[in-house]
């Protein structure tokens, strides 16, 4: 089954949005995780926290409504919604590290069956820096990895990450366009599968030990 990038991102972002609950404070990583905000039902009160100092990030501003003093962590101008607040980096990371953020959604280069995540560098190739990712993964109550199932033809869901870790034993849930995996003490539990893919499509593309329940749930659309 071949999906294009856009379809893949939509499947993942839609599914991640289902993990969020009324009243949650959520920090979204840059890239695909940001798109999760597009699938939160308007009736649901979710406060998006941005590590640069905003909680209650709203919609994209119209061109005549841009304020360069209000941006997200990607440096892109944003608006605020009702109930929003601004604060400095001390307060931001007090929220993040101190366990006041209900969930964070981040991309990853690799994840493994121990809940380890690598998403900040490829030695000798890409060293952007960890930014706030290490604090987020350590501090958020729930860590959701939202990523494409494979990178080109490389397997990303491993027994043990080979790239430098962002944090050890912190991931709770892995959501890809093919499946939803929960990190448990016994390994990765295959909770849901996208009906566009076969079980073989999953097992052949994951190196980690999978726990496969007798009755597979299809991915919640």
């Amino acid at each position, binding site marked *: 089954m071949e999906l294009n990038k856009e379809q893949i991102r939509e499947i993942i972002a839609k599914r991640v949005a289902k993990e969020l609950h009324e009243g949650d404070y959520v920090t979204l990583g840059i890239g695909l995780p940001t798109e999760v905000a597009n699938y939160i039902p308007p009736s649901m009160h979710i406060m998006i926290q941005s590590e640069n*100092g*905003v909680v209650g990030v709203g919609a994209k501003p119209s061109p005549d409504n841009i304020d360069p*003093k209000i941006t997200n962590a990607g440096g892109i101008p944003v608006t605020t919604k009702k109930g929003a607040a601004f604060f400095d*980096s001390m307060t931001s990371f007090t929220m993040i590290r101190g366990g006041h953020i209900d969930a964070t959604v981040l991309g990853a280069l690799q994840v493994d069956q121990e809940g380890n995540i690598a998403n900040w560098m490829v030695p000798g190739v890409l060293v952007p*820096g960890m930014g*706030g990712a290490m604090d987020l993964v*350590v501090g958020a109550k729930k860590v959701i990895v939202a990523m494409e199932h494979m990178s080109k033809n490389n397997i990303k869901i491993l027994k043990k990450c080979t790239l430098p870790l962002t944090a050890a034993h912190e991931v709770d849930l892995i959501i890809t366009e093919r499946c939803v995996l929960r990190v448990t003490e016994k390994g990765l539990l295959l909770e849901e599968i996208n009906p566009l893919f076969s079980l073989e499509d999953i097992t052949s593309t994951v190196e980690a030990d999978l726990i496969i329940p007798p009755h597979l749930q299809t991915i919640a659309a």
Partner: protein
Amino acid sequence: MKKIISAADAGKLIKNGASIMIGGFLKCGTPTRIIEELLAAGTHDLTLIANDTSYPDSDRGRLISEKRIKKAIVAHIGTNPETGKQFHNGEIEVELVPMGTLVERIRAGGAGLGGVLTPTGIGTVVEKGKQSLEINGKKYLLEMPLKADIALIYATRADRFGNAYLEGSTRNFNTVMATAAQTVIVETDELVDECLDPNMVTIPGVFIDYIVA
């Protein structure tokens, strides 16, 4: 009353080889006019402490592009390919620090604390060369305080007492950096004649040495 100086004079206060903290998260809340003057003054061999190295052609990022920085202590360099390039060529030293650790190290420097214990970085390369402690069954890294010779910070509005108000998401590292340098210079968009309403003060003037209006 604090001394009001020009951006050019502020630039000249920074000597070759100095350590400087510069506020801002990418472009937002960055004191750009003083950086311009620092570039014009030709100052070099600086140690930069900041959230990020911005973009190659703007503010802090230009200090990198124009090779004024010998060491950068930052959380993120991904938006400025020039930093990565100089790092790989061995032209610049880069110490990457998790953002939350960076802010607390600066806070410790400004608040007279001997260090910070954080769980961030445990089990990663950030641990390398650092002492770790186990407290109530949980592991923490000991991270050391950061201070600088000069801090350049941004304000939306300031009064002559050095009290500063910062709007929107411009606060970021500015508030903490104001506490952790020998000399603190605030660059304000607006200098008010009277004084700020005490309820509206984001950074109390006690931390400020000079105002660039």
